[in-house]
């Protein structure tokens, strides 16, 4: 980590930035070493896994200045709010700590147990049992908490879940073993109880790690609403104020290239706003005095003075987020496969143990012996495969998908995706790229390209960004220009070897035919047209979805005429002129017919449909609301990940079912032994670890699920 010494005794401030473009060691070095050369920045630390940069800087430096500094290094950056109270993160940490303790205890107790199994008896055995108890009791009390808490919560609501048999099994086994130890009995089951906790915690930790990684990936992609704004007070002085402290009535000065931190009304200035976060479409929307504007919009053309009308939780975007949450509640009622199995499994296991206990009592055995056998039954039937194999299969499959550019938000998404039998696709931004792409650059000479790239790089206007991406893709190196400056609303101007060059608004007539800009060098002018094109593999992917039996269908808000071309290209049914509520109704109608719909969309208008679909996917270029709502987010310009994810999900569910079959098969073999009273701690230890290893090994076959 590169760092600079503190200047004077000032207390340094810290800011966090999302930098999605980070991908290699040299990016990391470039940012960390490059940022400290900016005066006021003390140190920068990159987190590659989360694609974030934490910057320590002098308090005089505002987040936009640092954002600018990162951008001059060649990376897009968005300020993020510090997020201290991350509950999921803390939960994952607690699980890992419990796993470490259980692992430590399991190893040590096993060491002692091996000596008992190899023949230690008398005083030595009693001492080893006591030592085992000494290690096991605190371990069960600490590492068992996640299960006990969840089981207690379920029981209080008069339900049962996976954790109920686990908790009863572990507690009963530990109590029985303690009794055996005190009375100097032959067998103690501490090793079994602790090993069980270890395997189950491994499953939980895997599950949490998967969700955590996907969440970090999505968070890095999300363009956050601005962290704050420059507020102008009555005397004309301006001050940076954090978004949370903005109040209605304040006047924000929003420079070109900045995002709005609150809802408001424009009082001065005329500009264009990029509201891609709402619509997914990047053509700027004009804004002039009197217009109301929303937090999160990117001001692309000229500075605006905006009077704040609502901030923080009162903004329109916060409202939308709440609506999304409500719409998604239906989905949260989905019962995961493991829990579905647990509904039958838990009562069956308890019944079996009770029957074994009663049976042995009736056959004339003592309470003590009958109880020991019941404990053996509980221990041997403990759902290792359900607790470990399902998350193991899911994390392996999600890892495979992540390498192919699909971020999966939670495990149940895989199960739901495997069940879908209909696919509805949005048009703009989903089948198409949703951003302008230059139509034809062949009118440009070889000498124009470097100049044009240098001009395009100087602006954040969507058309400039599109040009920059297209030219950089061709491997063009930017020319060196002098006097580079951007005139808001007009374009970028500079001198190239003494001749004036510019990239800007085309003449009035050309402007009429859609998105266009003009490149001028001297008195030559080249008009550049832009259009939104189909994703390169849209046709193949739609065909692949049809092959998978999903009956793809295109639902769009566009005019039916605009859809004709796409319908012909992909050969599927298209429905046009749909409002968000119509899309929702379409999905509800299909749902009522018992169909399970996969919704793929990107705009805010798709967000309710995404929430209502049985499973949903959104491209990374989608609006924030859609990315938050969708179960999976796919990166890049290709649509193929959609079909890929469906195939991977189906394979995953197949493997999970195999694991269930393996687990049940193992129980069919082991339970009669347990009921017959033949299961010693040694047999239990061997049976438990073998079954766990087998299901994990089976899950590992999913490594190439997304090939």
């Amino acid at each position, binding site marked *: 980590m590169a760092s600079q010494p503190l200047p004077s005794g000032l207390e340094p401030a810290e800011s966090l930035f999302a930098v999605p473009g980070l991908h*290699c*060691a*040299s990016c*990391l*070095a470039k940012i960390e*070493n490059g940022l400290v050369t900016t005066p006021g920045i003390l140190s920068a630390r*990159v*987190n*590659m*896994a*989360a694609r974030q940069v934490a910057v320590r800087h002098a308090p005089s430096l505002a987040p936009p200045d640092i954002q600018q500094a990162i951008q001059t290094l060649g990376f897009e950056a968005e300020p993020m709010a510090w997020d201290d109270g991350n509950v999921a993160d803390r939960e994952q*940490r607690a699980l*890992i*700590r419990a796993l*470490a*303790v259980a692992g*430590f205890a399991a*190893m*040590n107790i096993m*060491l002692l147990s091996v000596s008992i199994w190899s023949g230690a008896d008398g005083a*030595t055995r009693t001492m080893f049992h006591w*030592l085992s108890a000494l*290690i096991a009791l605190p371990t069960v009390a600490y590492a068992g908490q996640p299960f006990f808490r969840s089981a207690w919560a379920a029981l209080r609501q008069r339900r049962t879940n996976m954790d109920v048999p686990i908790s009863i099994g572990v507690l009963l086994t530990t109590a029985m073993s303690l009794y055996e130890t005190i009375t100097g009995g032959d067998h103690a089951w501490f090793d079994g109880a602790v090993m069980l906790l270890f395997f189950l915690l491994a499953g939980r930790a895997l599950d949490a790690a998967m969700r955590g990684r996907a969440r970090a990936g999505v968070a890095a992609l999300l363009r956050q609403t601005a962290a704050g704004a420059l507020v102008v007070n009555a005397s004309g002085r301006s001050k940076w104020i954090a978004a949370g402290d903005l109040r209605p009535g304040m006047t924000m000065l929003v420079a070109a290239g900045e995002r709005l931190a609150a809802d408001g009304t424009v009082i001065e200035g005329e500009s264009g706003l990029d509201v891609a976060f709402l619509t997914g479409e990047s053509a700027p929307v004009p804004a002039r005095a009197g217009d109301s504007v929303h937090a999160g919009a990117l001001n692309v053309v000229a500075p605006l003075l905006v009077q704040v009308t609502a901030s923080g939780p009162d903004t329109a975007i916060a409202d939308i987020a709440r609506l999304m949450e409500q719409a998604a509640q239906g989905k949260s009622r989905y019962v995961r496969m493991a829990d579905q199995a647990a509904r039958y499994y838990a009562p069956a296991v308890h019944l079996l143990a009770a029957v074994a206990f009663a049976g042995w009592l009736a056959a004339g055995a003592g309470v003590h012996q009958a109880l020991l056998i019941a404990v053996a039954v509980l221990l041997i039937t403990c759902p290792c495969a359900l607790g470990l194999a399902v998350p193991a299969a899911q994390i392996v499959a999600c890892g495979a998908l992540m390498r192919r550019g699909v971020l999966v938000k939670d495990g149940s998404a895989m199960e739901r995706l495997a069940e879908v039998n209909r696919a509805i696709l949005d048009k703009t931004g989903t089948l198409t790229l949703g951003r302008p792409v230059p139509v034809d650059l062949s009118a440009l000479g070889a000498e124009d390209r470097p100049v044009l790239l240098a001009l395009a790089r100087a602006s954040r206007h969507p058309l400039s960004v599109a040009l920059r991406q297209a030219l950089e893709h061709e491997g063009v190196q930017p020319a060196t220009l002098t006097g580079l400056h951007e005139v808001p609303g007009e374009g970028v101007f500079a001198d190239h070897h003494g001749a004036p060059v510019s990239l800007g608004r085309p003449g009035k007539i050309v402007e009429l035919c859609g998105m266009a800009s003009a490149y001028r060098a001297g008195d030559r002018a080249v008009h550049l047209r832009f259009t939104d094109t189909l994703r390169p593999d849209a046709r193949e992917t739609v065909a692949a979805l049809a092959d998978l039996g999903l009956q793809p269908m295109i639902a769009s808000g566009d005019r039916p005429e605009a859809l004709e071309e796409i319908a012909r290209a992909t050969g599927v049914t298209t429905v046009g002129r749909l409002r968000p509520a119509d899309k929702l109704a379409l999905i509800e109608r299909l749902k009522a017919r018992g169909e399970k719909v996969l919704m793929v969309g990107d705009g805010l208008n798709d967000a309710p449909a995404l929430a209502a679909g049985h499973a949903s996917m959104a491209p990374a270029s989608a609006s924030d609301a859609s990315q938050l709502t969708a179960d999976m987010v796919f990166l890049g310009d290709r649509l193929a990940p959609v079909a890929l994810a469906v195939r991977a999900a189906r394979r995953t569910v197949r493997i999970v079912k195999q694991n269930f079959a393996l687990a049940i098969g193992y129980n069919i073999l082991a339970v009669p032994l347990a009921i017959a009273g033949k299961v010693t701690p040694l047999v239990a230890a061997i049976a438990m670890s073998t079954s766990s290893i087998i299901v994990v090994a089976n899950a590992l076959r999913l490594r190439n699920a997304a090939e």
Partner: protein
Amino acid sequence: MTGLTLLIPIALLLGLLGLGAFFWALRSGQFEDTDGAAMRILIDEED
């Protein structure tokens, strides 16, 4: 038997030491950015 009274506490102590080291590493944020740590090794330090 006398050997055990010495060896078992030593074994447990060493195990606890390892557990303590893991907790310390977890607390000091060494697992925060596992991807970055792998890349940092490739950076040439100029100074």
